[in-house]
């Protein structure tokens, strides 16, 4: 479990060429999350959700403000599941898992990775190359890789957006089970309101320009399905907030398609 503190975070991309202007991706963004919590960042495309994940992971630095992640151990372990699973194509599945581990000897690392491959039912694919697997299998490898480091904080950037509706649906259920078995704090980016309501304990709604518009608690029993009555009701409330914010109500069109 981790404690995540974002304090007045700003991120500005300076112009890289003539005729370009600076872009404010994140504006005075602040929130705290800790414990075994599933937080969803929801907002329209281009509102800075993925940028914020990059700031949390350390891939990018904020222009001002700070993002602090404290874990149970000295340095917080951060797992990251990307939109595209980002696997080394020239390495086998097992090597891709081992790649991100930095502790223990080679044998221990491989054994631990195999355990997580078994958890996502892909132990048989350990010696295969990523291109030999389907999109859904690759994404499960990405999730297994992130979980295998036993993260304090798990970042997920629209991990199911490239998958077909049926695969995405089963993977949402699988993710809930895996998360409940782990102790990680999750920060999950999506533009799909229905997905956010199904998965999260809390929704942070972002607006264009990277501002925080609303912080909505989701207090529903688990496991949840997209078609659960409570989920659908809560989704309608969140969509209404979206409309108030003036953004495209994402999720209204996926409500039927993703079932």
């Amino acid at each position, binding site marked *: 479990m981790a404690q995540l503190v974002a304090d007045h975070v700003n991120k500005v991309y300076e112009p890289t060429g003539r005729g370009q202007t600076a872009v404010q991706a994140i504006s005075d963004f602040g929130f705290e999350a800790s414990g075994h919590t599933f937080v969803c960042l929801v907002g329209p495309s281009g509102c800075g959700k993925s940028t914020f994940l*990059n700031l949390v*992971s*350390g*891939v990018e630095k904020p222009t001002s403000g700070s993002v602090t992640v404290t874990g149970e151990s000295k340095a917080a372990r*951060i*797992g*990251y599941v*990307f939109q*595209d699973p*980002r696997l*080394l*194509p*020239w*390495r086998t599945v097992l*090597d891709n898992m081992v*790649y*991100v581990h*930095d502790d223990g000897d080679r044998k221990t690392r491989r054994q631990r990775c195999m355990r997580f491959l078994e958890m996502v039912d892909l132990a048989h694919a350990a010696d295969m*190359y990523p*291109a*030999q697997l389907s999109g859904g299998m690759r994404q499960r490898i990405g999730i297994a890789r992130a979980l295998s*480091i036993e993260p304090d904080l798990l*970042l997920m950037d629209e991990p199911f957006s490239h998958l077909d509706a049926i695969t995405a649906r089963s993977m949402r259920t699988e993710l809930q089970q895996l998360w409940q078995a782990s102790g990680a704090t999750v920060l999950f980016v999506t533009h799909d309101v229905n997905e956010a309501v199904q998965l999260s304990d809390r929704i942070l709604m972002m607006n264009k320009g990277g501002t925080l518009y609303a912080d909505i608690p989701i207090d529903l029993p688990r496991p949840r399905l997209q078609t659960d009555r409570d989920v659908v009701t809560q989704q309608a409330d969140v969509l209404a907030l979206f409309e108030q914010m003036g953004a495209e109500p994402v999720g209204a069109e996926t409500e039927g398609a993703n079932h």
Partner: protein
Amino acid sequence: MSTATTTSRGSSWRWLTSDRAARYTARLLMLTLWQAAGLLSTRIPTPIGTIEFLIDETMRGELWVHLTWTLRRAVIALSAVLVLGVAIGWAMGRWWRVGAYFRDVVTIMLALPAFIWALLAAMWWGFSEVGPFVVPVLAATPMLVASTFEGAKSLPKPLIEMSSAYRVPTGRFFGWLVLPAMAPYIFAGFRYAVLAGWGALSLVEFFASNWGAGYRAAFWYDAGNFDGLMGWGLIEIVVILAVDRLVLERLARRSRRWQEGTERW
């Protein structure tokens, strides 16, 4: 019985009309024409004369001695080319200031013919061992740098970000990501660098050495023995072809094994 005969005839006919037969015929024709041309003039070496010379050179013990000198120099110089070329090429792609600094230098070095370097080496270092090391390095490194630079520019940014997010140790980052991603560029560049370096080494041995295949070619050239000159030229071609086919091509294929594995799917 008659069926077997028909099949045998059919396969013979297919072989005679195959691409392979055409290639063998072309080679035989070339050898015949070469032999015929050699018979018309004493200044043109013949294939038979060249082979006879190489047998004599082997019996005298000169072939092995001089060839090993050249091979030893080539291995040392090309190892340096590999290290320098990959390091400089990668740094050029990684830091734009390094790229800006080396870009013109590499272009000039690529444009400079190897025989200029060979003559300069003869003037600067005489018949010492410095020239046979420095000249192949100067002639071959720019090719590998240019190719590696292209590879470094095209490193997959998403994978670099992933490695950064997971704080992958530097050694593993280079060994598992950077080098394999650049491998096709490095192998392509190194194959050309080996050819360029080998040619440059022959030249510097020709002009400024008392040992090696190039020196031996110069020796027989000065003696007016055209079979000797041709013989050593032939040896240099055979060696570099063998290295290219047996070592470099196999290494390049090995670096693409993961792609071949996926093509079946």
